[in-house]
């Protein structure tokens, strides 16, 4: 660690994963991009490092030998709101959903590419480093005016039902980050009722029809299968969401 870099006050990222090759890869990939990397190889060391280093963000592998990923998140969340991105495996949707519901902010499925990684990290960091929510959200042809409760697509105002508006706002507030079905249901309906899950889908479908250029090829509201939904901001780097 050079003094220069330390002085630049780069964002600090803590990687907690027991797989050495992954840590090495992340180290190489992310150091170049002006992040500062620390790593730990198990849960306890990770918690200790979090206290010592005070990272801006944590990349957490779910297969830790000593501490279950969920337990780590729970413990960590008791005293810190620092964002966590979990590194999970293919088709372990249940794990992803559980992690997100417990307090993680986003996820990546192994094997992933550097591009995806950076997109997510940036999205998460932006949110956390901001302290004030913006009054207007714009992304591509979509614009939301929170103050006046207006939504414009290609400068044309479109009419949304109250629930559709709430959903869109929630997604925008978490732009580029995934929201689980559970989180959406809790925030909007206050309870997790199978009936409401049904209604959520219908609403998403209707939303898409209203704001997407091609509802079959959505650019804004992306389905994270088995997990939830994500409002994608048209970032240069984030062209692969999977």
């Amino acid at each position: 660690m050079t003094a220069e870099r330390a002085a630049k006050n780069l964002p600090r990222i803590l990687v907690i994963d027991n797989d050495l090759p992954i840590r090495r890869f992340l180290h190489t990939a992310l150091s170049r991009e002006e992040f500062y990397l620390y790593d730990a190889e198990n849960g306890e060391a990770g918690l200790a490092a979090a206290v010592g280093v005070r990272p801006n963000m944590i990349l957490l592998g779910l297969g830790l030998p000593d501490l279950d990923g969920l337990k780590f998140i729970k413990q960590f969340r008791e005293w810190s709101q620092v964002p966590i991105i979990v590194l999970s495996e293919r088709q372990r949707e249940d794990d992803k959903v559980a992690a997100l519901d417990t307090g993680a902010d986003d996820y990546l499925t192994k094997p992933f590419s550097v591009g995806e990684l950076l997109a997510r990290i940036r999205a998460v960091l932006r949110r956390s480093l901001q302290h004030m929510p913006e009054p207007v959200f714009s992304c591509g042809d979509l614009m939301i005016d929170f103050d006046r409760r207006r939504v414009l697509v290609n400068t044309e105002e479109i009419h949304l039902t109250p629930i559709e508006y709430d959903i869109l706002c929630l997604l925008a507030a978490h732009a580029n980050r995934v929201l689980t079905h559970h989180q959406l249901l809790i925030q909007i309906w206050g309870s997790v009722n199978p009936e409401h899950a049904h209604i959520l889908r219908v609403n998403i479908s209707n939303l898409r029809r209203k704001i997407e250029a091609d509802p079959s090829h959505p650019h804004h509201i992306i389905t994270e299968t088995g997990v939830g939904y994500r409002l994608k901001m048209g970032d240069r780097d984030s062209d692969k969401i999977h």
Partner: protein
Amino acid sequence: MATNGDDIRPSPEAMLKLAKAEEAAAGEGQGKLKIFLGYAAGVGKTYAMLEAGRLRRQEGRDLVVGYVESHGRAETDALLEGMEIIPRKTIPYQGVALQEMDLDAVLARKPQIALVDELAHTNAPGLRHEKRWQDVEELLSAGIEVFTTVNIQHFESLKDVVAQITGVVVRETIPDRLLDTAFEIRLVDIPPDELLQRLNEGKIYIPDQATQAIEKFFRPGNLMALRELSLRRTATRVDGQMRAYMETQSITGPWPTMDRLMVCVSGSPYSEKLIRATCRLAEELRATWFTVNIETPQGSRHARENRERVWQNLRLAESLGAQVATVTATSVVDASIDYAMRHNITKIVVGKPNKPRWRELLHPPIVDQIIRRSGPIDVVVVSFESLEQQRPRKAAPKRRTPFDFRGYAASLMLVMAVTVVCELFRPLLDPTNMAMFYLLAVIVAAVRLGRKPAIAASLLGVLAFDFFFVPPRLTFAVTDSQYLITFVALFTVGVVISTLMTRARERAEAMRIRELQTASLYYLSRDLAAAAEISTVMKAVVRNVEEALNAHVVLFLPEGERLDIVAASEGLTLDTKEQAVADWAFRNRHVSGHGTDTLVSSALIYLPLQTTTSVLGVMGVHLEKEIDYLSTESRRLLDAYATQTAMAMERIQFSQQAEQAQILQARENLERALLNSISHDLRSPLASVTGVLSSLREGGAQLDENARAELLETACGEAERLNRFVGNLLDMTRIEAGAVRLNIEQCDVQDLVGCALAALEPRISTREVSFRMLPVMPLVPMDMVLMIQVLVNILENCLKYSPPESPIEIIATTDSSWLLIEVADRGAGVPDQDLKKVFDKFYRIPVPEGAGGTGLGLSICKGIVEAHGGRIRAENRSGGGLSIQIRLSLTAAVGKTHDS
């Protein structure tokens, strides 16, 4: 008769070797029987047995006393001391407490050796077996060695000879096979003088009632003859053992030709003796022998009792080792000769005629006829002495035929009618011709009404004819004595015709029954041949037995330790007692129940379903008529049924085993193919990646930007391919293992397609993909994640197998309660005969080559779609290309489910 003197006897060493071999061979499961044989009561058999028992105990063998009667003799009691005696069973019977051996206790105790005195003994009623020798047989099959005592006169084949010698008819008999198959026979022998001395000293037990008979029995002449009999019988057995030895050693010797004997059986009291005599003869000659029952029309008219005797005789012959046959014919002599010729009989055994001479003139005795017509076959004539008291037969139920008035009334009517007619035509008719009318009447009566009414008709006809038409008219006097001839003729015709008719009818009836039985066996075997499962067999058997025998039937199959009822006729209920009888039949592989010698008090007869190797179950039958339980025919039929059933069951078992073996084999083949394919598919992309990386490492610096970029592009692509393959493999494994859990939720089809397309970026972005769906689509219950995988797999195929410029179409519609998704390309399609096979694991179309891919994609789709209860199929499109169509139900239940 052939003599044995020319044969070579083996040396004592050879005999010892044989004895050892026998001992080793007899070790398997069956207990050995050691018989202490004597020629009269009091020779010391029980004593000898107990002595031998003591010796064994001293050697350390585990020995119990099953049943020994000491009759209070001090010496016997002394020997009993210290031995373990199984307590006897007490059976109250008609006010008396009878003591019998407790068979179950001995079986439970499972000793190595059991001592059972008095092999010839009838058990008290209520016990499992009728005879003690059956108890002993059961002990032997349980693997227990048994020592027993018996007198020579109790053996079945010697009964007549003994009776001849001593004048005493022995009632208590034992089958000869016990003597023949016993492991060891110890002859206990003392000179008759010594025996008589013992008798006088009161050392021999004599029950009080038998004093007179015993005195008659214990005459010196008798004793000597009996002794000789027992010595001779034992010698025959030794001779037999030696011959068996010689046979196993293939020692050539002048073997006498194998005789085949035949004896005819009837209801005559002498048949029994004939049978026994033939048995003895057959033993001496070591010949096979046949017992034939010739059924004639006259015979079928005989009393029920007679027919029973015939059946009893046949069963006796069978138990003595004969092959039994029943033949239907008109002439006894013809049938006998015919049977003898066809079966290559060498000697026919007949009994000496004893009818008075004058009767012989009228009916030449059968013996003479047979002798005359026997041709090359020897005839052996056996003589019997005085008549005997018959053994009391099992009583047949008496049937009282109701007195049939109608027959007689009809005869009367006929005669009256004829009389009236004749009266009317009297001026025109000659009395001779009137007689013809009466004749007609008698014939009609004989044909239609039966024997007795026919005789009545002839009698009445004669009287009427005499009274009304024979001068002097209206009297019974006869002027022309020639009319007497007419009367006699009329009468005779009536009798003869009616007899013939009755015979013919009875014959026809017998034929019909036999034909029915044969037909029923045919139907059964036909039904069984077609059966592919045990349950079908059971149903077929029940149906056939019910129809053929007019009986109720129940079938048991073993279920673990017990027998369970798997099929039964309607209305048949069994209590636990019956179940126990069925159990016994199964365990001992022997018929039991009603009409047999074992457990006779049960209501059904139980036949084990057995093949040569094993017993597969039990069939219980309840017959309508009491008589059918005993008749040889019915038993034969039941045996045939049981055998057929067992064979069919065995066949099904074998074919199921063969099928299993085949399935196992097929699975192994598939696994091998799987491993080969996986190995290749894993290694290829890895090889590419390794190749690229190693080139970069070795000479990366020398490469220019483009080359580097190209290599890296390749490596990335191959790594992704590997990832996809591993994913497919995992999916397939999960589907195969039945571990697919469907998380069914109401999903948006548009979303589904969108996610699938997104997952295929960037490969699919260069292609033209159109998606059409109904303006309003309902939400569809499905597992979103899995169905996306399905669409991805199908679209990947489209990408691979259709030209880059060609369009890909996705269409979603509904059809009553189904969702239909179609994915179609304009590629080369699939050969028509392979359209079904595309969904098989590892199926790849041969062209184009090098398209890559695992062949698993579509089979995963099929697995997932079918787990949803849906359907997937492939079709070639008109105009070229492949269309894959998926149907999913719109009405499935939401929630998590297991796929089993």
